[in-house]
Each structure stands twice: as structure tokens, then as C-alpha cells.
């Protein structure tokens, strides 16, 4: 039973899914990737991060792949997470939903600057 609803997909959960699109990551890796892809605006704390990971695991949107050390961070073994096909499908549909919203916003000239 998922402890939190994933519809609508929370912002943190969507960012985590996006972070995992390119590669498998451990928790700190996800945090850094999210920070990077949001240009530093979102820095996931451990509580929010692992709470979201748990929800996504329960929703079978991500899965734990293995436990291994990250050579760049030392010898500590870390759990790595991977996007599932359901997760990939969801992240795509969420992105399309946002793209639709963006189109509407553009049509209504809500946004400034043509390049956005």
C-alpha cells in the first residue's frame, strides 16, 4: 500500500524519476543530480529524498538494483536505484502533461520570452 499518493506526481518524486532517466544512482547521486537539473533550486534533504524513494519503490516506479561502493566517494557501499519501465512511462506522461501546460501558457502569453 503506497503511503503517499503519486497522482498528481509530487515535484520531488518527478525530479527523482528524471534524475534516474540516464543512469542508476544512489541516494546522494540522486540528490546531486536533482540539484544540478534544477540549477540548485531543489536540494533534497535526506528525509524528503528517502521518503520519496520509498513511495516510488512501493509504486514500482523505481527499483533497487544493487549495493556497491562508489569509487568517487570512498569504500562505503551504497544502494543504487533504477527507473522501471512503469517509472519511465510515468515520467514521460508527466513531462508531456507539463509540456501541454507549457503550450497553453505560451498560447496565453503568460510566459515572457519566446525561447522559454
Amino acid at each position, binding site marked *: 500500500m503506497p503511503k503517499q499518493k503519486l497522482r498528481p506526481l509530487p515535484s520531488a518524486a518527478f525530479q527523482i524519476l528524471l534524475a534516474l532517466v540516464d543512469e542508476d544512482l544512489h541516494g546522494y547521486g540522486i*540528490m546531486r543530480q536533482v540539484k544540478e537539473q534544477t540549477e540548485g533550486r531543489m536540494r533534497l534533504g*535526506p528525509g524528503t529524498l528517502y521518503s520519496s524513494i520509498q513511495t516510488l519503490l512501493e509504486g514500482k516506479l523505481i527499483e533497487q538494483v544493487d549495493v556497491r561502493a562508489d569509487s568517487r566517494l570512498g569504500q562505503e557501499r551504497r544502494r543504487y536505484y533504477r527507473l522501471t519501465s512503469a517509472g519511465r512511462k510515468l515520467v514521460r506522461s508527466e513531462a508531456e502533461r507539463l509540456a501541454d501546460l507549457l503550450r497553453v501558457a505560451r498560447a496565453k502569453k503568460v510566459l515572457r520570452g519566446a525561447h522559454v
Partner: protein
Amino acid sequence: MSEKIYSWFLRLYPSRFRESYGGEALQLFRDRARDEKGFFERLRLWLDLLADLAISVPREHYHFQPEFFGVSAQRLEGIPAFFVLESGSPRPGALFSGGILTLVCVITFSVWLSQPALSRPFRALTSQSRSPASERPSAFRRAPSHATDSTREKSSALRPSDVPAASSRSTEAEAGDASNVVPRQDSRFFPPPPPPPQPQAVQPGGAADTTILVEGKDPGVNAAERHRVIDGAIENLKQYYVYPDRAQKVSEGLLAHERNGDYDGVTNGKTFADVLTREMRGASQDMHLVVVYSETLLPERPRSSTVEDLVRYRNALEQQNCTFEKVEILPHNIGYLKLNAFPDPSVCESRARSEMRRLNDADAIVFDLRENRGGSPDMVMLMAAYLFDHPEYMYSPRENTTELSWTRSPVPGNKLADKPAYILTSASTFSAAEHFSYDMKMLKRATIVGETTSGAPHSGVFHRIDEHFGMGIPETKPINPFSKSDWVAVGVEPDVKVKAADALETAIKLAEIKLGKK
């Protein structure tokens, strides 16, 4: 140091979260602490962490929806099963804390219960189902605000038994008006029955556990009800009182008082009943007349005893060893018998005889009736028979004098007929126990040691006047061969007056002196 502080913060999360992700959260903290050095970086790290804690801790506690673990998968329809919320067993520390907390709660609750003022509402809830029969709600005994203990006791003596009238003597009474006649068995005796499903209201005029208990205050009596009660009392007196001339005198007295407006200020039911009793006794010089007031509704026609009543009564007596609380031989071969009622011989005769046989070789016998609440006159006769070697007349104010008024002495094999006898009494010694004590005293067969007995008005037959008032009227003319009037309203005076608590010791000393002289 910082890591230690953060690990303390992690304790704010639920245990299931800490178990799953505590290590990783700490790892992530270490990673960030390693990468984010410098004052501002660190400051931002801690601000992030605190903001994260503020958001995620409540969410973890609030949003968690427990899942059932365990046997749910194997559960079959209709078969009871256990479910648990946590898959792991509690930590020893949690068990210890839980144990301490439970202990504190139990002690607090016990202390609270022992404070009568604080725990009264709770006691009121529990007492109905757990209290012994002597404390069960009944028509008379639940009216403390209107009666002193002694008057309440006196009133309750008129309660007919809720047990079947099985003795031979009861047939005479039962042949009369079935709705109003008291079984000849002493109604005062109510052995605690097995826990009844509902509290019972024992009514004057018959057992009536279907009666609605009227709780609360005395509704009071108005002029119309006072008139109705006086009319009803006069009618009953004329119809049933064994002395018609006195009935006439009492009636005239009551009417005269009513005409004079002497009762106008009496609005309390219990007080009115007491006033009428006093005046009736004054006019008739008969202490057996009594008017009683019941807060509970008196049924017009009492429910007759059922097989279940009989079974319940029998079981209750057997469970209590027929109220023979103690039967033993004391030093100097003094027999001691503590009897807390005179139970119906139809159930308890063999028990009584076997207990008396146990004392047969004693050199003296002490009957401890200090807690005896009365019972059957037939049992009084049965017990008395052991103290005589010839049939002896036993006076009972409720019985017409018949051949049954003589004890069935001698009892075959009995050796107690000529042994010194002592009867211990208290202010609670009641009714049939007073009957036994009074006759033994008058016959000079036993020495009464203790306190003056309660003076129960046991002799009247109960007649309902209306839904709250009833009266006891003597319908028999027993012969009292003794010069002194009986115990009704005055009690039996002891030969040796000591506190009830000291009575046994005193009686033993008296017996020892007596046996030493022999």
C-alpha cells in the same frame, strides 16, 4: 560531532523509516558534509536539513498507513485470525518502558479506586454486577437518605423471600392471599446467589426482578396519597389484623390525626411511613405493626417463584456451605459454630446435621450469630432441637402455636443437650437469629454474649397498600409463655453485654470457667 547531532535528529522519524533508510540518510549527511565545507556552505546544509526535518518528519508520522502483516494471506473466511501492525518484535527498551508504564497505570488506578470520593461513579457502575446479595439493590436497602441503618433493617425484614417457600410451615401462609402473603420463611435471608444477569429488585410482596427500579429522590407524598395510604392501611387492618378491637382503635387514631391535619407537613414517604408506624404501635401496643415505604414500585401481584429461582437458591446455598462459615473445636474442647443465616432445611438439613455431628463430642458449644442475617424458622427449630433432650416449646411471634412449635428433641445420638451453650450476638444479628437467641435466653438454655440484637419486625404478613407503601400485619396469635415481650423493635438483650468484637473471647472464658467448675 555534526554527524552525532544529525543522528539524534534522525530519531524523530518513525522506527520503520529509520530501519529502512537511517543508514543511508546518515551516509548522505556525511557526503554533503564532506563536500560542502566552509561556513556558509555548512550553514546552508543545516538550514536544508532543518527544513527537511520540519517537512518530512510530520509527513512520515502522519501519512503512514499501517499494513497488516502476518497471517492475513492465509486467512480463511469465518476463521478468526490475528493481525499485527509491525513485522518485527519490539526492542527490549520498548518492552521495558511499556512494562514500567503499565505498572504506573495499574498503581495509579488502584490508588484512585481506593479513594471513595474520586471513584464513586466507577464504583456505581461496577457494584451492580459484583456486589454480594447483602448489598444488592433492593426495595428498602437502597434508601439510605431516608432511613437510619436500624430502621432500614427493620423495614427490610418484611421483604418476602425471593426464594421458593419450601418449608412445611410456609403452606399455611401460601394458602392465603397469594399476592400479599409472606412465605413463612424468614424473608430476611438472602444468600448471595450466583452472579445474576441483572440486578434484582426484591420487593415486599414477592420476588419481582421484573420490577422497574425507580432511582433517585423520594418523589414525596401529597395529601391525596396520604389519604389513600391511611384508607388502605385501615382497610388492611380491618381485614387482616388478628385483633379486631385493636384494628378499630388504630383506625380511629389514624383518622383523628388526619382530620387534625397532623400529617399535613409530612411530604417525605419514608417519614410518613415511620409516623404511621409509631402511631399504630402506640394505639395498639403491638410492636409487630409496621408501615413501610419503598422507593421502588411495589408490584400488584408478585411473580411466583420459578424452577430457576429454586436452582439459583440451592446453588447459592451450596456454594456457601449453607452459611456454616466455621465449625471447629476450640481449646478445652469447646465447640464453635459460626452460622451466618438459618438456611432453608429443605436444602441444608443434611449439611446442618453433619456440622452438628462434628461438634457432638464438645464439652460446650458456642453459636456465633454475630453476622447472622436470619432465615428459616424451620432451621431455628432444627438447630434448637440439639440443645434439649425433650421437646421444648419455642415461641415465634409469626407462627400460630401448633405441634410444630415444639423442638423435635431428643435428636438421636446427640450429646449436646446438656452442654453449656453460648450465643454470640451483635447489633446486626437479625430476625431468625433473634428468634433463636430470644427463645434460648428465655428458656435459660444459653447465655447470650455480645450486643443487643437489631430488633427485626419479622412477624407481620406483608400487604401492599399502593405502589410505594405497604404494611406488616400480624395475622396469628402465638402464645408467648414468657413474661418479657419479644424482640421486635427492641432486640434481644444479652446476658453478658460486651462489644461484638470481644464476644467470642468472653464466651470462651465463661465456658472455661463453667467447665472448670464441673
